[in-house]
């Protein structure tokens, strides 16, 4: 009876994620961490963990786990079917797993990423203060694969008795604000062009960035063909490469970039972007800088 979860199967991608490793960007280390932070925090609260504990971020379901010992788990993110030993249980609530119980995660009907927390947290060794897998730089544990045994820490608090948490239903049309700058002056009529286009999330999007398809942004007069010296970039930065099609940087983004950033999506709106499936339409509502 070891406190471990054994991975029996995964869907397209299942990763260990916590709140990431901010504070190391000056060393070239991406922040990483869960893309839908509120969902990971909620899952941790439901099982009695501190909100920063490591859980599993799972793209489009398909995860099957066996509990090595009795534990409590909770699944959050978009509404999703969860089965324990073949019987349906609720998401967004604490679920007790007896030793040897098998949990299966279905495919969410909307959205992209489910979060699973376990009482005690996933206890793989931290790297630079975090257990998160960073797909850009390879820091943290490898993506989960069948046969992996994930160590689980000791529970620190009792599961909470929340009786009903409504699961979010990510839509197929998102409107997110973008604070213009630092390089909006590089683009012709940046605010109006960003807001006037209905962008579509490209299937090439990943944890590094959400790639948007749509009418390319055009450089302002005098900025055509101009090259930018690499500079620091933030999570949420809307970078515009030579193609003119924006990329919104997500948690595993490079810490510096050589293409101009037209604006930045505030942190509290990043979770919606982390749940945006390919094909989701996105409108970027420009806010003008106040400095």
């Amino acid at each position: 009876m070891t406190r471990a979860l054994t991975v029996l199967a995964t869907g397209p991608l299942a990763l260990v994620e916590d709140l990431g490793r901010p504070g190391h960007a000056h060393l070239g280390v991406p922040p990483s961490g869960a893309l839908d932070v509120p969902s990971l925090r909620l899952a941790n609260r439901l099982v009695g963990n501190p909100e920063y504990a490591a859980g599993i971020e799972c793209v489009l379901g398909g995860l099957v786990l066996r509990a090595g010992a009795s534990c409590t788990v909770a699944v959050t993110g978009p509404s999703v079917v969860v089965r324990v030993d073949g019987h349906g249980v609720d998401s967004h609530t604490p679920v007790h797993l007896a030793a040897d119980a098998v949990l299966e995660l279905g495919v969410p009907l909307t959205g992209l990423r489910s979060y699973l927390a376990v009482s005690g947290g996933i206890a793989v060794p931290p790297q630079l203060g975090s257990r998160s897998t960073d797909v850009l730089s390879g820091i943290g544990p490898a993506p989960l694969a069948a046969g992996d045994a994930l160590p689980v820490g000791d529970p620190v608090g009792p599961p909470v008795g929340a009786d009903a948490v409504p699961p979010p239903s990510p839509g197929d049309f998102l409107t997110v604000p973008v604070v213009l700058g630092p390089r909006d002056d590089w683009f012709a009529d940046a605010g109006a062009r960003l807001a006037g286009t209905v962008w579509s999330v490209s299937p090439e999007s990943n944890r590094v960035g959400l790639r948007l398809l749509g009418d390319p942004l055009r450089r302002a007069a005098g900025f055509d063909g101009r090259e930018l010296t690499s500079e620091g970039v933030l999570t949420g930065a809307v970078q515009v490469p030579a193609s003119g099609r924006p990329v919104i940087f997500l948690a595993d983004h490079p810490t510096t970039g050589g293409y101009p950033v037209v604006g930045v999506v505030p942190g509290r709106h990043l979770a919606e972007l982390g749940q945006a499936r390919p094909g989701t339409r996105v409108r970027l509502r420009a806010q003008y800088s106040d400095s």
Partner: protein
Amino acid sequence: MRLRRCGPDAVLVEVGSLAEVAAVRAVLAGLPGLVDLVPAARTVLASFEPGSPGLRQVRDVLARADLSAPPAVVAAEVTLPVVYEGPDLDLVAQTAGLTVDEVVALHSGAVYTVAFCGFAPGFAYLTGLPEPLQQSRLDTPRTRVPTGSVGVAGEFTGIYPRSSPGGWRLVARLADHADALFDPAREPAALLSPGDRVRFEAAT
């Protein structure tokens, strides 16, 4: 100097030189709520915890500072043993109009400063490269540069912490017994950090 807005919680400080970048970094370090302070060639990105007072203090702190006489920072000194056997050593010598021995003497004789990091975890852009070694990138970048390769490009020299594509002219490689540039399981993970002083020592 110009301050450029970066979302609700960060600012990009744009200056004219690497010396001013180092000064701005020193002046902003320690502001309340600071999360990341990322120097680059002409900018410093400072990001803060949402709602912290630090962001509002940036403009005042910079206005009061004398960027030509920044606060003294204690710099770590790192000596890296390297083997001068890079595949572009002859090209660099030819371009500089020097012998290979002279290139090695110049490169290993200088004291460098980590101006900033980026490109990959642990990749440090070192300034202080002697002028004859300041050369352009390769016309065709290599698809794979081996871990530990030491290259020069423009005013910088640097070491590839892991295998990656790259266009710098390679003059040396880190000696086998040298510590890894970046090891996420080590504390500290990165051998080099902005502000550190670095020397290269010819090893065999």
